[in-house]
């Protein structure tokens, strides 16, 4: 087990709030040892049954969780936008059975001291998987409450020591048309690979999660197995799935939906009821699974999807009409 003890020289660029209290840090090591011993992390994904998920050992983090009732596992795994598997909402669930998320490698590149190819297990080494119940708001004006299991992206990023030139983090999804029918040439929906990006401070924000599971199970293929990004204060399309590359860049990276329709989908994509999509209002949203079904009402969309207290400061002084 490689648990890095905080060194004196780390304090220069670490906020006191970021330092793990020793009690949590020691018990974390015990839990992790147990988890590895139980084979839960090292062998979490049996190669034979690719559509199945396995149990994860997670620690619930109430501080970052909302109290709303989470959506059902069925809702979360059968209503997805994942065009690599088809453009209908039920297509990812129907067409991702053949996708094999194991073994998985992630390439770390760009402006960082530590780069290279890392296995999925290696990426998570030494990190506690937390369960956080987040709001998820799609740009299409529907939303869900999702109990994600994952690690803070900041904790993953720190390890690679991005240099001062690294102002942005770019992400890339896998291209595998043999297992992702939507990527085959006869279906022109988005360009492949799907790409996304965050500003460095957004990537390092404690809310930003690298999710590896949901509801205590590893990620189903249709939700972005084996790892995906979750930025709950942004529209869902920022949550890039099945990540194969993380690159630290100096310039703002291009993003797939912005390339597809630049007037409609911006780089920041912050949930904002005051800035309409050109073709529909963003003031209200349909909560999936809400009371009343067909006649259930929509609800008010919250600024930054209700995470204003935690993230508004990142955008202070920015014209959010311009930087949508």
């Amino acid at each position, binding site marked *: 087990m490689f648990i890095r003890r905080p060194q004196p020289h780390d304090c220069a660029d670490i906020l006191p709030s970021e330092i793990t209290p020793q009690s949590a840090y020691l018990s974390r090591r015990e839990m992790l040892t147990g988890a590895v011993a139980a084979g839960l992390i090292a062998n979490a994904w049996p190669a034979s049954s690719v559509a199945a998920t396995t149990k994860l050992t997670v620690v619930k983090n109430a501080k970052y969780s909302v109290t709303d009732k989470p959506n059902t596992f*069925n809702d979360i795994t*059968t*209503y997805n936008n994942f*065009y690599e598997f088809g453009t209908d909402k039920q297509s990812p669930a129907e067409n991702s059975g053949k996708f094999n998320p194991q073994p998985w490698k992630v390439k770390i590149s760009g402006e960082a001291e530590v780069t290279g190819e890392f296995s999925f297990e290696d990426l998570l080494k030494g990190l506690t998987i937390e369960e956080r119940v987040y709001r998820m708001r799609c740009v299409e004006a529907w939303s869900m409450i999702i109990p994600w299991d994952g690690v803070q992206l900041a904790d993953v990023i720190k390890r690679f020591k991005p240099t001062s030139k690294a102002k942005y983090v770019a992400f890339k999804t896998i291209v595998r048309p043999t297992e992702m029918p939507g990527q085959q040439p006869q279906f022109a929906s988005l360009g492949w690979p799907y790409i996304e990006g965050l500003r460095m401070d957004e990537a390092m924000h404690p809310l930003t999660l690298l999710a590896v599971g949901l509801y205590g199970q590893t990620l189903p293929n249709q939700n972005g197995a084996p790892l995906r990004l979750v930025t709950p204060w942004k529209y869902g399309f920022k949550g890039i799935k099945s990540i194969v590359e993380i690159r630290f860049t100096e310039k703002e990276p291009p993003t797939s939906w912005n390339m597809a*329709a630049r007037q409609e989908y911006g780089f920041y994509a912050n949930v904002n009821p005051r800035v309409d999509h050109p*073709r*529909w209002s963003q003031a*209200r949203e349909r909560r999936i699974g809400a009371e009343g079904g*067909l006649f259930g009402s*929509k609800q008010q969309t919250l600024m930054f999807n209700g995470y204003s207290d935690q993230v508004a400061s990142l955008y202070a002084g920015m014209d959010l009409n311009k930087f949508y």
Partner: protein
Amino acid sequence: MVPNQKTIKFVLKPLLFIACLIPFALLALKAFGVAGAGFGPNPVEEVLHELGLWGLRFLLITLLITPLKDILHKPWPIALRRMLGLFAFFYVTMHFVTWLWLDRELYWPGILEDIGKRPFITLGFAAFVLLIPMAMTSTNGWIRRMGAQRWRALHKSIYVIVLLGVWHFYWLVKSDVREPLVYLGIALVLLGWRVWKALQKRRATKSA
């Protein structure tokens, strides 16, 4: 095999009526959870989309009647066209009502804003508005009142309505335009038939 008036009135039309109601009945079954039927996670979106699709489909089906009568060299399919047209109006109206009530929650400021500011909704609304006089003048009484020529001229607005409907569909889709393009293809074939026939007629009268 030409069906006579009685067959049309007492067999074909009733059967057609029931057939045209089936898409709506299926949605109703899902809404009431009959026999295990149900919607996916977003029922309103599903209902809105289905009703819109059937509205467009019935519009295209009404455009099939003339080519059908040309191919058969018999006029009897025309007897079915009014019912098909009114069902198109029914599905389009239900699609519009679903949008107003279940999606926009009868919030009129938002509704007016959408109709004015969102081009694809402007088109859809225009198509609906143009359908209203067609539905109102669908009876024999109105054909008599207007006279065949004026009535036919008014009802040619179906050509514009279908294209507005397809365009509405094309502009609402986020990126996968294949389905709207299929509908466009069908619409162009059905409209193209009329253009071709008109050109044929002109050639025939020229050489006569």
